[in-house]
């Protein structure tokens, strides 16, 4: 059998790709072309741009500047302030998503009347597009006719309507709140999938071994959730670091520069100042930082699985 099938293959090796290999190439080609056009090319091209002084305010002169754009970005104290805000926003958001999603997933993993309805309701934020979510929160936070003001006023928590997003101390937290609301459902699903894979026998064994509810959670549930949890944290961190829509629609980086995060800075530099070279360099720094962070989180959380 093996001798017979290996004969034509060996013969073909001298004459270039086999029939199968050629077929495979033909089948892969369309998708590879599309991927190259929409993913690989922009990545390479933006790196190329980041090495030039491309400003649309003086389009006729595009000098090669090497790594100068990177140096400019990394030595700019305002950039580091933006990094600080991005970090604060991300830590707040990811921590809140992780905790809330874990509690929700644990709840939905139990059998109780109304579980299905609650699961369905919980998925609603997931179905809302980012921009629609941002517009909805803009309305909720509105200082004149916002739902938050209305609710708190009627409950007597506040005496007069507040300009929520105008308070520099609260802005990041309020934007994070809107972000968390949108992100929790997906995290719940990821954790719920992890919970469903835990065999019931493990809980029975732990009960017989004398573990109480908390110990069963610590010794059976949590370790089994480790990889789902790592996934949630990596994914949400990447989403938070790069998040733009809420900053654009709710505050445009304000008040002052209270919500001036890196993603917003890239937008301003590129599309308002029309300094494409600098914007591209900043994008590259953000992308590399995101990758490095994701790698670190995966290593830290998934190492001992």
């Amino acid at each position, binding site marked *: 059998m093996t001798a017979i099938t290996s004969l034509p293959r060996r013969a073909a090796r001298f004459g270039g790709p086999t029939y199968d290999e050629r077929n495979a190439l033909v089948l892969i080609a369309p998708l590879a072309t599309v991927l190259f056009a929409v993913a690989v090319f922009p990545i390479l091209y933006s790196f190329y741009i980041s090495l030039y002084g491309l400003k649309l305010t003086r389009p006729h002169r595009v000098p090669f500047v090497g790594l100068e754009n990177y140096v400019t970005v990394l030595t700019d104290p305002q950039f580091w302030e933006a990094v600080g805000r991005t970090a604060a926003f991300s830590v707040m958001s990811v921590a809140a998503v992780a905790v809330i999603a874990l509690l929700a997933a644990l709840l939905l993993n139990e059998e109780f009347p109304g579980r299905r309805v609650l699961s369905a309701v919980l998925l609603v934020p997931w179905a809302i597009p980012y921009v629609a979510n941002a517009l909805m929160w803009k309305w909720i936070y509105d200082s004149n006719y916002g739902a938050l003001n209305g609710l708190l006023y009627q409950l007597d928590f506040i005496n007069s309507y507040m300009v929520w997003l105008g308070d520099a101390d609260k802005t990041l937290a309020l934007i994070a709140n809107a972000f968390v609301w949108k992100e929790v459902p997906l995290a719940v699903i990821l954790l719920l999938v992890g919970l469903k894979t835990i065999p019931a026998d*493990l809980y029975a064994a732990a009960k017989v071994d004398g573990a109480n509810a908390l110990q069963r959670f610590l010794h059976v549930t949590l370790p089994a959730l480790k990889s789902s949890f790592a996934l949630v944290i990596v994914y949400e961190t990447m989403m938070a670091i790069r998040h733009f829509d809420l900053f654009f629609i709710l505050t445009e980086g304000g008040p002052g520069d209270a919500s001036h995060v890196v993603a917003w800075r890239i937008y301003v530099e590129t599309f308002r100042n029309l300094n494409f070279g600098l914007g591209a360099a900043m994008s590259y720094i953000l992308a590399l930082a995101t990758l490095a962070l994701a790698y670190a989180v995966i290593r830290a959380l998934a190492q*001992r699985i």
Partner: protein
Amino acid sequence: MARITFKAVTKRYAGDVVAVRDLDLEIFDKEFVVLLGPSGCGKSTTLNMIAGLEEVTEGELWFDDEIVNTLPPHRRDVAMVFQSYALYPHKSVYENIAFGLRMRRVAAEEIDRRVRDAAAKLEISHLLQRRPSQLSGGQRQRVALGRAMVRQPAVFLMDEPLSNLDAALRISMRAEIKHLHTAMQTTFVYVTHDQAEALTLADRIVVMNDGVIQQIGAPDDIYERPRNTFVASFLGNPPINYLDGTIEGADGAVSFRRGGMRVALPPALAARLRGSPGREVKLGIRPEDVSRHGLGAETPAMEGIVDTVLPVGSDRFLGLKVEGCDVFVRVDKQAHHREGEPVRLALVPERLHVFDKASGLSLLADGAP
């Protein structure tokens, strides 16, 4: 020390599924009891009620002189081996075995001593630092046993512990489990659907079907004197043969009759059936209860045509056509029968089983109808 008593216990799951019905059972201290029955008959449910993992819906469950209906698992002094082994996947073998002791706050040196002791007995000392995922099925099985052993429980529960192992390993593990029982001197309750496993291991077998106990007794007792056709069929491989027929009484002799076949029944049966000629019954003949020898004019015998011949090493199995019925028998390997050939085999009168055709109940058992 643990004697387990079920008093009229019924277990009903949500949706009115009755898994166990009106169970009365006493398991004595240090006894090895096997719950035997087909899948879905309520064996695991019964075991889980002993463990405290399932609540008793009705009736009482006693451990010695205490009702334990509402006692949680960790206060029952039971250990359990699961069919899936249920090892904690992220813990080392050592930690898996130690877990139950850690939860009970046993001193660290004592835990270490017991874990190493159990590992040595189970020959898994070299695996203590591995994860369950790095073990073979047989090794996982041993870890699961070790986890139960170190607890030194009053009751050792096992739910089909061998059914995920391959055939050879299954047979060698039976012997080890038997040894374990002798060494541990505790009550063992063991669930299986494998009749051979039950016959090998048990002090007493509890045969269950549809949530109801069919018969309780020592392995020989159950095998030799099944109370009904369910028990008779469930034990024995290949299974018992049945011939439908009627009782005939003539001149004080009582016999079973089917077509041209007539089998004189032994005195004990004859005495019971003298008064009911014409009664419809099933004659039960186990494959090994026939013989080519000792054929006399008076011995009960069976005549048939050889349909198939199956040599299996030590024995030879024959498929026969007897009065239109298929009958499977075992003969010694010296027998040289050909397909299509007529045979006549002697039946051992004391080993014949007679069941009421309608109810399936044995007519030999005490209190038979």
